[in-house]
């Protein structure tokens, strides 16, 4: 596919940044909900192009960050059961639970495998019939259908040693919680890839019920800058629209097949979000039909009592209520090498991004 040259890109970026600067007559707070947006913003240095009045705050859009300790504690407990093998996306390995991490459990001898696809985990189950292979089913609407399809594939191929430990999260309920909380957000950058599954519809309440403009955006630096520009422009003109700027992969209705698979395998439940508490209808669990793939139902395990890391303000960070810099642990006791909270672990975590890309600890 065709791409823009470097100089063209720079000129387009400069134009957008210039226009934003012109319109930035009053402070606005824009939230990128998606962690991949957060990373792209930091990596591309987009913040440095924006005027001080335009503040970008990060939302609860990193699946690792929003996963609560009890899920990790359960996964770690399973990893220590003889006969169990944990298969997981690499993202989860370093996340601290109440007292340790999967990485540390692995170092101590647990069999933890990193996979790129849930289908690779299913393959592990087929190759290790005497083991119980437990896949850590994390992720938002983008990832959940892939795992749901894998569960269906497991059923079709008659594999009986493949299990999932679910901690999926849904984006729209979190957004609703956010806008109803006391944190001010003037506009939303909506997650492009989640949207490619769920489409535009589920975001309509933002404009219709809460009068907050929102843009579904891609992940190229220029796409993000354009979305920021669009939001600033709407706010400048007092408008409020849901705009889809990622039409290349986000049809208005999303992916109906994926939605169907999701509805067959999973049902909506209330779910614990790190720092936000339990939000109604914000998570997924296996429907009764697929319960035999549910690790929690099929493999009993004793899990340590959940403890939250005292002093960690991940919850407020995830709501955009504070910036990481306002957490007294940031950059001191809490660094990516020795993270206190989950937001410091994932590359997509807000605190990690702030730290790694220098905001709050570096100025040229």
């Amino acid at each position: 596919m065709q791409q823009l040259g470097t100089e063209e890109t720079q000129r387009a970026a400069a134009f957008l940044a210039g226009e934003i600067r012109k319109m930035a007559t009053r402070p606005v707070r824009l939230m990128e909900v998606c962690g991949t947006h957060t990373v792209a913003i930091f990596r591309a240095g987009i913040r440095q192009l924006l005027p001080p009045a335009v503040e970008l705050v990060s939302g609860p859009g990193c699946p690792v960050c929003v996963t609560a300790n009890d899920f990790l504690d359960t996964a770690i407990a399973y990893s220590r059961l003889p006969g169990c093998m944990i298969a997981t996306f690499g993202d989860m390995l370093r996340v601290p639970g109440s007292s340790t991490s999967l990485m540390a459990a692995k170092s101590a001898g647990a069999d933890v495998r990193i996979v790129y696809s849930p289908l690779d985990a299913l393959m592990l189950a087929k190759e290790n019939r005497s083991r119980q292979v437990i896949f850590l089913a994390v992720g938002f609407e983008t990832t959940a259908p892939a795992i749901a399809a894998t569960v269906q594939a497991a059923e079709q191929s008659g594999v009986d040693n493949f299990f999932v430990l679910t901690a999926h999260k849904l984006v729209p309920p979190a957004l609703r919680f956010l806008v109803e909380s006391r944190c001010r957000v003037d506009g939303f950058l909506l997650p492009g890839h989640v949207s490619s599954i769920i489409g535009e519809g589920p975001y309509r309440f933002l404009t219709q019920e809460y009068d907050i403009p929102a843009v579904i955006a891609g992940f190229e630096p220029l796409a993000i800058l354009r979305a920021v520009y669009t939001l600033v422009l709407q706010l400048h003109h007092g408008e409020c629209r849901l705009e889809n700027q990622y039409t290349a992969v986000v049809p208005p209705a999303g992916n109906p097949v994926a939605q169907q698979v999701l509805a067959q395998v999973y049902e909506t439940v209330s779910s614990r979000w790190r720092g936000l508490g339990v939000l109604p209808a914000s998570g997924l669990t296996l429907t009764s039909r697929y319960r035999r793939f549910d690790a929690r139902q099929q493999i009993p395990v004793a899990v340590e009592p959940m403890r939250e890391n005292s002093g960690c303000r991940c919850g407020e960070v995830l709501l955009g209520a504070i910036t990481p810099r306002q957490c007294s642990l940031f950059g001191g006791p809490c660094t990516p090498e020795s993270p206190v909270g989950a937001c410091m672990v994932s590359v997509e975590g807000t605190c990690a991004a702030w730290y790694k890309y220098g905001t709050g600890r570096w100025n040229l």
Partner: protein
Amino acid sequence: MCLAVPGKIIAKQDLLATVDMNGITRKVSLMLLPQADIGTYVLVHAGFAIQAVDDAEAQKTLELFKELEGYAAAGD
């Protein structure tokens, strides 16, 4: 939130496609995008094709950026 990359389907057998992502190939499931055919671009996430890439829409976005760049160049 969700890393996903576009790639071109270069082979397909039932619901298993071989996708070329800028020279890197991988077997990718079409369970979530069963209608995708050889030659089309799809968005790949966690080993699954999760959407088709709409060429015309992609082109439109590119045109828009070129336009912006044009404004900038003119403004120089």
